[in-house]
């Protein structure tokens, strides 16, 4: 069976929804919400089908597609053909997991948006679907230029989604998002174009091979420079410590359904880029800077955790907690052994699910009570017992309670780093303790804390609100008790990465 069209359909399926929405009248609120939600389903179904395809032992390479796309012309007879870029999509194990994660979170976010978005649904869902195309494309692109194109496509809708549908300081947040990420992608573009000009290709696999070849036309210094540039580019996205300020604003100001996507998927592009390109294309340089990356990871972990501890706004707690958890990704990667890298990838997926869940719950709380201050939310368990229960469970998952996904990833990441740099890892463990402290403080403060307001008359979870909460919770527990749903597809990816590092 020829499956080469599947990925293109998967990535571009939201376009159909955009087209239908464009023809609908602005005022048809219900219908717009339904179409917006339905439009995310084809991608979800195809992503799940691809996962099953893999689970039944078939080869993911069946999905690969590569057709010539752009030929940049040079002087006839001298540089001919000058350079060419193919349209190529493919799925590896790691990408497969991220595509499934993206499709799941996007569908749930569309459900959440039907709840949280109060105006101009048509524009919202059209931009949202465009954003989904960008995200799916980022994880399936097989060459750097295509990756960059999809990466930039995510910027514009996100800018509008924050700037138009966000809270009080939405425009500031939107600009800060655009400029930081614009600079990040500018640096990325420089790296891509230098690689392109020097090697004549942007295909990722080919680049990996060229770079492994000692006779490659790039000097060691240039490679190191490119790697550092890559670290900065994806460091903005992840975000790594001094480059994080934009992300706090976005998490606080953007509407909850967008934060689910942002924290659940968009930040993960940074991690994906570091693993796929940083580690894949520049393994030696990654090794050279491993200590620095480990230190950066620990700084992220501790900085995020300490600041999360003193926040009064629950959204800020979660925002800092995201920074802290992304530190664990860096820690795992810096170990550069199988356990560490696997832990990092697990953390990427796990945090995607957990933060989507937490931000959905925050959205519900804010919608019901008009506040997200921990102090004002105290005593929630009395009025909203079910929501409070899920909040507690999500908090536990986030702090790494065994049996949930967060535990597996943190454990493996630290296991990896203890093997290589025990002292740095030891310092890092303080972060684990802090994580427990700030999450318990915040979550317990909300659920069982001193009550400042009456929760009577405040509705608990109801109807479709259960869908995102239950689905995400189930996935979190599933990964926690049966991690091989993730580790099986990752096996091949890890082997390739390990081969590259030579470990």
């Amino acid at each position: 069976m020829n499956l080469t069209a599947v990925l293109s359909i998967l990535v571009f399926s939201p376009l159909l929804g955009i087209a239908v929405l464009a023809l609908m009248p602005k005022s048809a609120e219900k219908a717009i919400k339904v179409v917006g939600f339905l439009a995310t389903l084809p991608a979800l179904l195809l992503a799940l089908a691809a996962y099953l395809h893999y689970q039944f032992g078939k080869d993911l390479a069946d999905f690969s597609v590569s057709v010539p796309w752009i030929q940049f012309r040079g002087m006839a007879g001298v540089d001919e053909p000058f350079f060419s870029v193919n349209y190529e999509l493919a799925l590896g194990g790691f990408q497969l997991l991220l595509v499934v994660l993206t499709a799941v979170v996007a569908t749930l976010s569309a459900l959440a948006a039907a709840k949280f978005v109060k105006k101009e649904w048509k524009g919202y869902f059209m931009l949202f679907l465009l954003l989904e195309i960008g995200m799916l494309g980022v994880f399936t692109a097989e060459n750097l230029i295509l990756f960059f194109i999809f990466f930039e496509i995510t910027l514009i809708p996100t800018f509008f989604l924050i700037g138009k549908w966000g809270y009080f300081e939405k425009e500031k947040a939107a600009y800060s998002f655009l400029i930081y990420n614009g600079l990040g992608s500018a640096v990325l573009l420089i790296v891509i174009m230098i690689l392109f000009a020097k090697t004549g290709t942007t295909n990722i696999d080919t680049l990996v091979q060229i770079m492994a070849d000692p006779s490659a036309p790039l000097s060691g210094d240039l490679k190191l420079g490119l790697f550092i540039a890559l670290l900065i580019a994806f460091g903005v996205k992840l975000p790594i410590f001094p480059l994080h300020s934009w992300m706090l604003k976005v998490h606080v100001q953007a509407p909850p359904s967008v934060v689910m996507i942002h924290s659940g998927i968009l930040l993960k592009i940074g991690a994906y880029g570091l693993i796929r390109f940083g580690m894949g294309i520049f393994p030696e340089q990654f090794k050279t800077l491993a200590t620095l990356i480990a230190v950066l990871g620990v700084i992220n972990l501790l900085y995020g955790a300490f600041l999360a501890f003193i926040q009064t706004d629950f959204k800020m707690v979660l925002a800092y907690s995201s920074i802290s958890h992304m530190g664990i990704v860096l820690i795992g990667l810096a170990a550069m052994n199988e356990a560490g890298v696997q832990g990092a990838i697990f953390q990427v997926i796990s945090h995607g699910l957990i933060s989507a869940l937490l931000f959905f719950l925050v959205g519900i709380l804010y919608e019901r009570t008009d506040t997200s201050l921990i102090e004002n939310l105290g005593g929630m368990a009395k009025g909203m017992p079910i929501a409070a229960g899920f909040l507690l469970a999500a908090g536990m998952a986030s702090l790494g309670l065994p049996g949930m996904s967060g535990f597996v990833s943190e454990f493996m990441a630290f296991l990896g780093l203890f093997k290589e740099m025990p002292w740095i890892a030891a310092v890092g463990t303080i972060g684990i303790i802090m994580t427990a402290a700030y999450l318990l403080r915040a979550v317990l403060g909300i659920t069982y804390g001193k009550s400042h307001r009456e929760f009577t008359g405040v509705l608990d979870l109801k109807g479709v609100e259960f869908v995102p909460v239950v689905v995400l919770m189930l996935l979190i527990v599933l990964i926690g008790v049966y991690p091989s749903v993730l580790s099986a597809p990752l096996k091949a990816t890890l082997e390739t990465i390990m081969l590259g590092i030579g470990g």
Partner: protein
Amino acid sequence: MSLSILQQFNWSAMTPEFIILGVSALLTLLDLFMPKSLDRKILGWIGIAAILAAIVSVLGMVGGPVTSILDNSFRLDSFAMAFKLLLLAGSGLVLFLAVSYKAKDGLEEYHGEFYYLFLSALLGAMIMTSSGDLITLFIGLELLTVSSYILAGIRKYNLESNEAAMKYVINGGISTAITLFGMSYVYGLTGSTNLIEIAGRLSSVSDGQQAYLLTLAFLIVFVGLSFKLAAAPFHMWAPDVYQGAPTPVTAFLSVVSKTAGFVIVLRILLTVFGSAASVGDPSKPILLEMQDYLAFIAGATMIIGNVVALRQSNIKRMFAYSSIAHAGYILVAITSLSSNMFYSIWFYLLAYMLMNLGAFAVIQVVSEKTGSTKIADFAGLYRRSPVLAVVMGILLVSLAGFPGTAGFIGKLNIFIGAFYGTPHYVLASVMIATTVISYFYYFGVMTQMFFRPASDDSKFNLPFGIIVVLIVAVVGSVLFGVMPNIALDFMQNNLDVLADFFS
């Protein structure tokens, strides 16, 4: 020259020029003899028909051999045809804007010259593309600029328009004089005005004295032409002239006149200074030795254009600085002198024509409605006319160089050239960094259109001409962004510029 010699020339090479010349003469006569009560718009439509006929005749000549007539002073090569197509298409779209233009003040109903002056300016630009001689080059340039002076001041009862024309005449006059002075050095050294002959003589000379003089000539000519391109530091006239001139004229200046400027730069720099030996190293042409100087000008142009644009509150001034910045991007391509230079410049000018003219069409509609050209007048455009706002949004995204649009592919082309061969890291980095700066002002307009409330709810009536321009601009910008090879292949297969540029 006797009649029989004249008859031997292959005059058909000049068909497009004859069409434009004939029709503009016809329009002049029609304007003279038509009763005053008749609407002069019909002249505009005749002009559009003439341009279409000229495009067809150029397309008919595509692929033919190089023809040169009149002692090599007029040559029809691929370079000429490629840029003629751009100039004709740009002028055609400008005329569509012109027939839809309703001036609030200063332009009388009775204004036939408003239409045929565009044609005579276009004729000048077309002659420039085909000149093989300094004299024809200069005459073409003068025909273009003198027509533009009148056009800039055509609203004769409007103060701003008069100021614009006055500044333009003075600055333009000085720059022409400087260019001519520089050319006189070249003539003095070689005793010929024919470009090919000049190139031939210069390449056989290796006298140090001459090299000094030629370097001086290079600087003087380039300074003069920098005025035309509105490149830093000779860009000061552009904002005032752009602001004061009627919108279609501004569009003409920013697109057609700029394209013609690059045509003359390429012709003179490559043929004359690309073959003259430099002072230090006789094997290295002056052009290569002056690369650093060009790079400096390009960098300064990009920085000044983009940074000063941030502070503008008038949309036409903002677009003036934006067009300065775009000239800077194209200068990067000229500086890097890579083998894809012609293609990248041609493609960038094509993309720039589409997005800039489309944006000016929107500006024209909005400013006619509101009576001013403040950026704040775009507030709430999305509410008043969603189509117009979305169209402007797409064009701004293209101007900012986001993927999926022609602007991105244009920049990509330039980057490849800049990193290929001897890489220009600093220059390319400046280009990418200033591109990010440009997000601020392009998205500033977006903020107004999409986030701000409208001052009134009145709708827009789009005249036919505007609709044509908008459709062409948006379809072109997206089409060449997604499938750039349509344009690139056309160039490569039919117009192999480098093959016959120097022959």
